[in-house]
């Protein structure tokens, strides 16, 4: 790829600001991977703002995480795109907080950003032909030595592990597998539920007026919360449940910190290697 060649030219007709940020990220990917991540994070924030302004304008001033959450809930942001945006958000934030970004990580996120841009452009310019083409990694300004290539491969392997673990965590949390025909399965359950409902009705169970039931339940709940035999238990239950939830969250955090530490060690190793190279010791 020549120096003025970009992977993000197709964005010019769609969103100037996003296109500009993408080009800057591309420019920095080898020379300053941290800056590349800053730009990419800003890029997806800009994308999210625009998408939110179209579907949930009252959320346009929310933070990025909340905006992505809203877009997911509204069904605007599919699971795969959400994963890509969250990965950029997370690595961008880590870079802002002083965790050094290795080039292979920045390159991965740049590639994610290219894929996301294609999806974004198709959403913004509905009906228009969008051709992002294949992602061509910007070439390194200097040829890598064997030692650098080896370290970069190690970083790539670590990134593979991180992405694999994050994907597994996410998949475990979801009620349905990503490769599952979710609509089909839920349709089947719905048919079964309706059949069971009819059987219940035929057996003399009362027909359910859901709105009435919901109202009664809400009123009951208000009363129950205040009731001495339930109220105090509920507060205790909440404390216990929060402690258990905190335990799960702490483990997720520990995993993320371990990844960041391992990544930082590899970045440090790369720095030392480059210093030795400059001193002619390798």
């Amino acid at each position, binding site marked *: 790829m020549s120096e003025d060649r970009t992977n993000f030219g197709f964005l010019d007709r769609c969103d100037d600001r996003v296109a500009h940020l993408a080009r800057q990220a591309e420019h920095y990917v080898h020379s300053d991977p941290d800056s590349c991540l800053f730009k990419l994070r800003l890029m997806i924030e800009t994308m999210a703002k625009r998408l939110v302004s179209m579907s949930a304008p009252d959320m346009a001033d929310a933070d990025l995480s909340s905006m992505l959450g809203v877009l997911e809930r509204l069904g605007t942001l599919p699971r795969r795109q959400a994963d890509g945006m969250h990965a950029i958000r997370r690595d961008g*934030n880590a870079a802002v907080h002083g965790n050094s970004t290795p080039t292979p990580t920045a390159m991965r996120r740049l590639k994610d950003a290219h894929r996301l841009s294609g999806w974004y452009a198709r959403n913004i310019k509905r009906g228009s032909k969008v051709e992002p083409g294949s992602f061509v990694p910007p070439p390194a300004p200097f040829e890598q030595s064997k030692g650098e290539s080896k370290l970069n491969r190690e970083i790539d392997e670590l990134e593979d592990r991180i992405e694999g673990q994050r994907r597994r965590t996410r998949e475990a949390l979801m009620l349905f597998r990503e490769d599952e025909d979710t609509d089909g399965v839920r349709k089947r359950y719905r048919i079964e539920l309706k059949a069971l409902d009819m059987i219940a009705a035929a057996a003399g169970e009362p027909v359910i007026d859901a709105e009435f039931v919901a109202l009664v339940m809400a009123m009951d709940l208000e009363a129950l919360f205040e009731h001495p035999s339930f109220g105090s238990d509920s507060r205790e239950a909440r404390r216990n449940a929060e402690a258990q939830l905190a335990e799960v969250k702490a483990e997720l955090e520990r995993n993320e910190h371990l990844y960041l530490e391992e990544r930082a060690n590899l970045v440090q190793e790369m720095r030392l290697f480059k210093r030795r190279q400059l001193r002619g010791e390798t």
Partner: protein
Amino acid sequence: MSAKHQDRGLVMNEVPCENQRTMSATAPDIELATLWFLAARAMTAADGTLGTARQAAAGLYAQAILGISEEECEQAKAEEVISSLTLLDCLGRLSKAPREVGEKIMTGVMMIAYANRSMHPLEVRWASMLASSMKMDSDDFQRCCVNARVMAGMLGTHAASEVTGESDSDEAGADS
């Protein structure tokens, strides 16, 4: 995930543990995970909405409260495990589950129902069927509902960030 096979005790309002049947109350396993996913999936099918955050809240509940591990979640959702099971299978399994397990599942399922702040007739019917299969009386059901409301409020705020395996408090999430 360290949750595997931990006895997490009773999070919810304590209920006398009687009616012990075949499923272990202390050792989360694939049976429990499969039962949970069947019951929870049916509840999301009942009102026709399925948000990522709602799914994630259900996943967090499974891991934090039921003590099901990531691996067990994956295994329970495998096609060969869950695809051939019907909701009648779910009711049958629940009727054989220990009381404590059944109440936790009922609470989680009601948490899913409360997540969108409305009740659909089929959601009410599904809750009623689950309660009947366990022979749960109205006091216990109400207790589950109260706990479910508590959990819905609590997990709803966490689910969006947990979906990507991070928390609000880590440095990545500090400025969101």
